[in-house]
């Protein structure tokens, strides 16, 4: 009986909010009266927080319950937070993973490597984009994966608005698949590292080396040109590796290229070299659900990897790569992964920042991971603690605009919902 009451209360709350979200799109001002506003700034979490948006900008975050506006969303259990930021994904590059002609994740046979741009393939209308958005993911770093050699290419930052204008930054980072890529580069990490060193040297000597397109030791002229931006530290180098010793070798690259901004994605054995990662200011992206020796590169996987890294002072973001679809279709599982990191020892704040502010800052967009007055509103309203698996998104605002909470999946849900009592013939529902 107790459960029944709870259930009813829950569904009532949702229907109330659902009916309001449809109309706030046109509103000039929106007031959200919540249980909690998570700012990710020095202001921390504001209990009973009230957040006001006017003309798409946040104009106040306080506890003024008397605030009024064109539209008011109020709920005793509502949480308002920065939107989730997927630290590393192939979102919008793939529709159906197994169908080669529906995805553009990597170029199999092309010479072009470093200069392949995610921005040339990203499709904001991919159904995964909407599923991510209604799961609270409003920004994503998107990278092409490697096929030809260890270089995936040039990654981008997008919103999940589904609009053609959803690119935040078309040239945000370079991705290298170090462990996976070694199969292609001679099935040897030694060969992969030699290739990477040569590539960095090609970029460093770009001005004097190339008379023709093929004068590099590792890269063509166009690819070497694309790599130059990582040498200055302007673009981070996102590089996948799991084995501790590989990470040390990658850190070593900074000796000859001191301005490299390195982010290691995977880092299953990161806890073993946490001190060195912290000292060299190398960030990591880890999946806190990984605890098995999936390969001989990750024999040291453990559930408290993220905690040990953070305790050592390593800048740590949380990814969902262990989930099926965890790099595109199921980016929406980020809160579950972060919540499990809390269960494994992180504070709630650390875990939540690891799926919002931390990755946003890694790419130079800290404002996309915070709620502050004066900013364009980029936020999510939840019906409870966002890291609880039973919580859900109530509304999403991207760049000041209230977003649709519909998707292909919600339409399938509505068509087949057993509580739907319409008498229309199948196919016309």
């Amino acid at each position, binding site marked *: 009986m107790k459960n029944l009451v709870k259930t009813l209360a829950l569904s009532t709350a949702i229907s109330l909010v659902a009916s309001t979200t449809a109309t706030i799109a046109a509103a000039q001002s929106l007031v959200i009266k919540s249980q909690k506003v998570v700012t990710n700034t020095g202001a921390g979490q504001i209990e009973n927080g009230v957040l006001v948006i006017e003309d798409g900008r946040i104009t106040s975050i306080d506890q003024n319950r008397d605030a009024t506006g064109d539209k008011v969303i109020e709920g005793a259990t509502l949480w308002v937070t920065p939107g989730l930021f997927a630290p590393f994904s192939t979102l919008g590059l793939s529709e159906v993973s197994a169908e080669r002609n529906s995805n553009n994740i990597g170029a199999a046979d092309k010479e072009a490597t470093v200069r392949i741009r995610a921005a040339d393939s990203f499709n904001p209308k991919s159904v995964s984009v909407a599923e991510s958005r209604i799961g609270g993911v409003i920004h994503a770093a998107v990278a092409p994966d490697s096929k030809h050699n260890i270089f995936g290419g040039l990654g981008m930052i997008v919103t999940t608005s589904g609009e053609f204008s959803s690119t935040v930054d078309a040239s945000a980072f370079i991705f290298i698949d170090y462990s996976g890529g070694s199969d292609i580069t001679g099935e040897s990490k030694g060969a992969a590292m030699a290739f990477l060193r040569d590539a960095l040297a090609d970029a460093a000597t770009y001005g004097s080396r190339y008379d023709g397109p093929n004068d590099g030791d590792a890269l063509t002229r166009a690819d070497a040109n694309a790599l130059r931006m990582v040498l200055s530290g302007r673009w981070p180098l996102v590089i996948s590796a799991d084995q501790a010793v590989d990470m040390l070798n990658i850190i070593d690259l900074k000796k000859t290229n001191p301005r490299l901004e390195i982010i290691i994605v995977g880092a299953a054995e990161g806890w073993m070299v946490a001190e060195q990662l912290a000292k060299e200011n190398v960030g990591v992206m880890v999946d806190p659900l990984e605890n098995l*020796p999936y390969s001989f590169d990750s024999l040291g*996987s453990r559930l408290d990897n993220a905690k040990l890294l953070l305790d050592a002072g390593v800048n740590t973001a949380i990814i969902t790569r262990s989930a*099926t679809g965890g790099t595109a279709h199921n980016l*929406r599982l980020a809160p579950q992964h972060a919540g499990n990191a809390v269960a494994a020892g992180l504070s709630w704040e650390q875990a939540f920042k690891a799926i919002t502010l931390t990755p946003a800052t890694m790419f130079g967009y800290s404002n996309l991971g915070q709620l502050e007055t004066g900013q364009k509103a980029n936020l999510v309203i939840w019906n409870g603690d966002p890291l609880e698996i039973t919580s859900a998104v109530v509304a999403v605002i991207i760049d000041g605009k209230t977003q649709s909470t519909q998707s292909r999946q919600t339409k399938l849900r509505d068509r087949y919902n057993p509580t739907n009592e319409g008498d229309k013939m199948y196919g016309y529902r």
Partner: protein
Amino acid sequence: MIKTSTAYTIIAASALALFGFSYFQSNNNEDAADAVEAFPSTYVPRESRQTLITNAHILDGIGGEFETGNLLIVDGKISQVGDFKAELTEGTTVIDAKGAWVTPGVIDVHSHLGVYATPGVRAHSDGNDATSPITAEVYAEHGVWPQDPGFAEAIAGGVTTLHVLPGSANLFGGRGITLRNIPSRTVQGMKFPDAPYTLKMACGENPKRVYGQRGGPASRMGNFAHYRKNWIKAQGYKDKLDKGEITEGKRDLQLETLAGVLSGEILVQMHCYRADEMAQVLDMGKEFGYKVSSFHHAVEAYKIPDLLKEADTCAAMWSDWWGFKMESYDGIRENIPFVHAGGACALIHSDSADNIQRLNQEIAKAWAHGNRAGLEISKADAWKWISSNPAKAIGVSDTTGSLEAGKRADVVIWSGDPFSTYTKANKVYMDGMLMFDRATGLKPMSDFKLGQPGSGE
């Protein structure tokens, strides 16, 4: 191993009545009791202490809930559940579980632990004998590596029983095996005593992809033609078997398995995503007179709960996997609750060495999505998706899958509400034995993990 006791034949009826065993019975009734059981289970629960768990929030796995209840374990079996005053005998361990939740042990009907063990090297790829689309003669248990480190992590997630299946490359993939999740040097030491064998079958994309360039099937049409041709052969074999015409030396392992399905002794577990395909498989079952025990993955089961209910066929599903292949494109997060609401047997499965560790969270997500869509499913009912319904799907519900008196004492004590991200399994009992205890660090470790980085954690 020679079995001589008649008591044994009764206990082992469901698993053994047919092959190997009934064959010998039908041909040599005088010596029936001397029949050899192939690869018999050697699992024997160790003697366990009498344990009383008090003040717990209990979900019994068949829809019942006690907000404050007790649970008594005697001789490895559930003795009493609910609101009772226990008469304590000397030596009873009493656990005050105030604030904790108690449930039956988690059952996963779709695991590849052991057959696709970690680390994922080629040498550990033992789950698909992808040499022919028809390999009903292979047994998953012959590919299970008991040292897969994944078993121990599954215990930490409350999993006491799991069903290991061959993969889905083949139309008839081979026999599945039900295991107790106990550390053992041998597979036999893990085999769930008297659990029926199952037959893994596969619909759709995988078989036609694997065999499309290798002699077929190359289409869904070909899939069905192959199924039906082989069921016809199995009918002929079963006929001979029933007449005692299959004499020693003439057994056909492939047809033995298929005939076992036709006799109802072997339970069909069929990998199938699309609703339209499941509907055709159910019709094929009618054509040949067998039942599909459970569709696995069943991403579109929410489109046909009425058909599943009518056929008494379960759907074993994920909470939210979709989009990785065309036949998973229509996945929705309400799949499990919609099937449940339609009156069919709904259950969760992992198909993953990661998800098996937190199936409680997987059902929690599905439960929450279903209720947001307007359903009113209690947590007690939702727990069936992880306990009694999977037990039914693999034919072990007579001894496990619920906290009812007389059942195996497969019990999990959770740190709190298991429908929360933050909750963990604190204690796991199997047949009354404490197998995992977070507080004391009691947890098995495979031989493989010894001496590896992080093995102390």
